[in-house]
């Protein structure tokens, strides 16, 4: 329905457009997981993914529309079509000092590469790389004032959107099909996506480095609680065999809580180094309890910190090696809470990007993520190769090995993806 509306809008716009620019990508994606001897899950995917982007001038404003679609022949649960961007943007004032934007927008508030505490605005498609998920466009009205080397932005998000969380057939899902989401705020628990959110953000660009500071009141899409708000507590475990008995027998509804976030991020270049930091302080508006497999659960206020560095080493052969190190830590809550809520709680990433700097832009990425908490053995090993085959074609091959063993009946943290090792081969054509 949304896609039809989008194309209708583009059709209308095309009559008023003085110039039209179309770019896009079609990709053949083949992914394999290690066989889990479970007939109900899909160990292989063969998909055609596409992104179509239109840019145009519309009565002096910039119009952009970008839609991404994926159709999988082997795993139909992966079929998806979503808007990345659909927006009108206009600068005005004598020096173009003011900016107004309206429509679906993709935000990228971050300074780090792998972990991010502050990249929190858009809803996402979790059927993909854990450290690099696809983002859905967020409906927003934005107003910005540019200064000499800074800007102040105000955003209104008239409605929110749920994440796409893969169902029971997916190796990247939570094991069961997901029901419609609920958005929990201080009035009541709502299933409606028409929930208003807002943000204010200041960005400063200085000679010594760049920094941003923001405040937002919105619905947390990063750490929903999966459970059921209608339940009875049965300490005797006689009703349903566990302490929490959902009235409809399911624990598969994601609950997104309203939260006030104060955050910031900084990037400091120094000779061949770049140092980065991100900080987020979360203050949840509600503590509505949700019944889950492991007991009653609710959101608690916490802080997240991410730091990192990049170092570029250039070889005389013309090749470059970009070394990347990052550390992510959740503060203010105990380890048990962190493990329930996050895939990465106290983790380091160490890796590199080797650039051959040839005409094909061949790049090899490698690295690992490791939980450094004592008594926890959770790691992801990553390797990917990307190269241009000719003017329009690109090939990408990647391997992801997950080292995490279930320690309880209800896996938490990276344990959810135990043995979900993955290999992917993509052939993409850009036009």
């Amino acid at each position, binding site marked *: 329905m949304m896609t039809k509306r989008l194309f209708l809008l583009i059709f209308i716009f095309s009559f008023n457009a003085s110039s039209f620019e179309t770019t896009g990508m079609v990709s053949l994606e083949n992914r394999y997981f290690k066989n889990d001897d479970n007939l109900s899950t899909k160990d292989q995917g063969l998909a055609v993914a596409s992104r179509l982007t239109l840019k145009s001038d519309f009565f002096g404003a910039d119009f952009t529309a970008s839609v991404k679609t994926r159709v999988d022949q082997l795993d139909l649960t992966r079929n998806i079509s979503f808007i990345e961007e659909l927006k009108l943007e206009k600068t005005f004032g004598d020096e*173009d000092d003011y900016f107004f934007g309206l429509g679906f927008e993709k935000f*990228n508030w971050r300074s780090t590469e792998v972990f991010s505490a502050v990249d929190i605005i858009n809803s996402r498609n979790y059927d993909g790389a854990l450290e690099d998920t696809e983002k859905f466009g967020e409906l927003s009205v934005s107003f910005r004032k*540019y200064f000499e080397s800074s800007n102040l932005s105000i955003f209104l998000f008239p409605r929110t959107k749920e994440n796409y969380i893969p169902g029971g057939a997916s190796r990247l899902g939570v094991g069961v099909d997901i029901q419609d989401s609920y958005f929990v705020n201080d009035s009541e628990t709502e299933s409606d996506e028409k929930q208003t959110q807002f943000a204010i953000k200041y960005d400063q660009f200085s000679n010594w480095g760049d920094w941003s500071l923001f405040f937002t009141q919105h619905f947390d899409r990063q750490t929903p609680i999966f459970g059921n708000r209608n339940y009875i507590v049965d300490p005797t475990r006689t009703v349903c065999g566990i302490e929490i008995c959902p009235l409809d027998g399911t624990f598969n509804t994601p609950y997104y809580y309203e939260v006030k976030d104060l955050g910031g991020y900084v990037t400091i*270049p120094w000779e061949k180094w*770049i140092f980065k930091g991100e900080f987020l302080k979360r203050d949840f508006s509600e503590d509505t309890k949700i019944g889950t497999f492991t007991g009653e659960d609710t959101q608690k206020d916490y802080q997240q910190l991410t730091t990192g560095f990049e170092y570029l080493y250039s070889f*005389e052969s*013309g090749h470059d090696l970009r070394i990347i190190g990052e550390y992510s830590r959740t503060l203010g809550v105990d380890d048990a809470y962190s493990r329930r809520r996050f895939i990465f709680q106290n983790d380091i990433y160490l890796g590199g990007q080797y650039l051959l*700097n040839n005409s094909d832009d061949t790049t090899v990425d490698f690295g690992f993520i490791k939980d450094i908490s004592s008594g926890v053995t959770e790691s992801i090993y990553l390797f990917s190769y990307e190269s*241009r085959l000719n003017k329009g074609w*690109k090939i990408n091959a990647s391997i992801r090995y997950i080292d995490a063993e279930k320690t309880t009946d209800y896996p938490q943290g990276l344990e959810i993806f135990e043995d979900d090792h993955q290999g992917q081969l993509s052939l993409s054509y850009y036009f």
Partner: protein
Amino acid sequence: MFKHFVVGLSLIYFISENSLADEVSEAKGLEVAKIIEEAGKKFDSDSSDMEMVLVDAYGSSVSRSLRGETLEGSDSNGKSLLEFISPVDVKGTKLLTHSHKVKDDEQWLFLPSLKRKKRISGGARSGSFMGSEFSFEDLSNGSVEKFNFDLINETESEWTLKRVSKKRSGYSKQVMKISKKYSNPTEVEYYNRRGDLLKVAAFSDWKKFIVGKKVFFKAMKIHMKNKLTNKQSIFSWSNRSLGGKVKSSKFNPARLR
């Protein structure tokens, strides 16, 4: 004893004579560099379409196109914005550089597919530019304050100048042949840190521009040959204009989108 005294005196004379000659060639080198720098000033702005052809050691080639704008700043500080037009997978990527007389340049990369504005290290200058034989260092502001100069040779039509970066660099030295007519280099030899000849850049297709009452000559083509890998990169300009009106707001990192 007297013999030793004479030898010692001769040695002192020889050293002082050489060091005096060194000082003279350094002073002349600096003088020429200042002439060149002065000749390049007051162009106000530079806008052009650019094509870069990358040729590998086996002769196969690919091309990349860019759109570039430069705004002259005060006191050798300049700002430039490069937008990548092709290959299509990187179309819309922008590189904004604020170059400085002495300190490291400030650089930002805008990645349209991620909607991300990324600060990159202006100090990592020896890295390749877009997979070419040009490094960021080759394309950055070569203000006089960043180098030590030596005049190696002078003829009726050209100076030969050696320059050595005062800061860390991918090169041990650069030897430049500078045309007196164009007040610009016509050839630059780049020597790696071991002192071997690494690359040679040849500047050609000179075009005359007039901004106000000042005349500028600009090379419309640079052919860079890597002597160690046999790879080549050819950078050429088209639709180039100097002195046109360019909005300074374009070079504000806050506005990169």
